[in-house]
């Protein structure tokens, strides 16, 4: 299905958010995710099924002021 991940369009096979992170080779307990503008806690990623056109944000800690 077609997804928008961090602003970039891509084609993915994963059915859930958890599976998508694995498919895209993301790892680490410092990642935060959102699906279509709403937070998805790490514990709930396996339950969140993806649909064509979903927008996913994957964030990590960064320097800030």
């Amino acid at each position, binding site marked *: 299905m077609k997804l928008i991940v961090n602003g970039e369009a891509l084609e993915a096979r994963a059915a859930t958010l958890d599976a998508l992170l694995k498919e*895209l080779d993301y790892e680490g307990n*410092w990642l935060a995710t959102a699906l279509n503008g709403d*937070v998805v806690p*790490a514990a709930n990623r396996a339950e969140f099924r993806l649909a064509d056109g979903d927008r996913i944000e994957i964030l990590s*800690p960064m320097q800030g*002021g």
Partner: protein
Amino acid sequence: MFDLLGTKLASRLLLGTAQYPSPTILAEAVKASGTSVVTVSLRREMAGGRSGQQFWSLVNSLGVRILPNTAGCHSVKEAVTTAKMAREVFGTSWIKLEVIGNHDTLQPDVFGLVEAARILCEDGFMVFPYTTDDLVVAERLLEAGCKVLMPWCAPIGSALGPFNIMALRSMRGHFPDVPLIVDAGLGRPSHAATVMELGFDAVLLNTAVAKAADPVGMARAFSKAVDAGREAYGSGLLEPRDVAVPSTPTIGRAVFS
């Protein structure tokens, strides 16, 4: 010790972690500043988690408390979502709430700020709002549930220092029991000392240290200025006078003619 909302902090200087020449210099500057709180952010991870991991490891090694921000958010929705994501990653309900209203001045959208603050306070966050020195906005933020206020003293990164002393003084006077932290606009240690002399509880700064020729030395200088300003405030400053007053006693002065 500085009691900030029930948390004992060793320093009244809060330091940002952005724009340092290297991670090593950032770590050394944090140590030299003596700070107990550093601000951090969340950004898109483009390297499978690896770019975030390095900074995550560094921050955890500093041994200080983390204050995540919502920097760059221009809407209530963005700020609230970012705050929730930060709470999960950083394991803290503290959030430096920024809702930016103007690209050029980076001044806060105070209407969106109050709305986002209300949502987050109701959700259990300890909201540190980046705001202006407007008293009415400050009152609205307190009504929304904020327990601390973080007014700018000049635009972010401008290094202009406090240019509306009257407004800052007025804020201190109106909210004697609310922790007030000057956030943004400080350029020199003397700026920090000035706002601390006005009775502000702490300062938060980043660029003035990170972009100094020697960030470690500047971190140390700001630390001393914050301490000096605080001690001066507690010691009772002499008010300016329009006339000269001799400091040496005039009684007993010798007469030679």
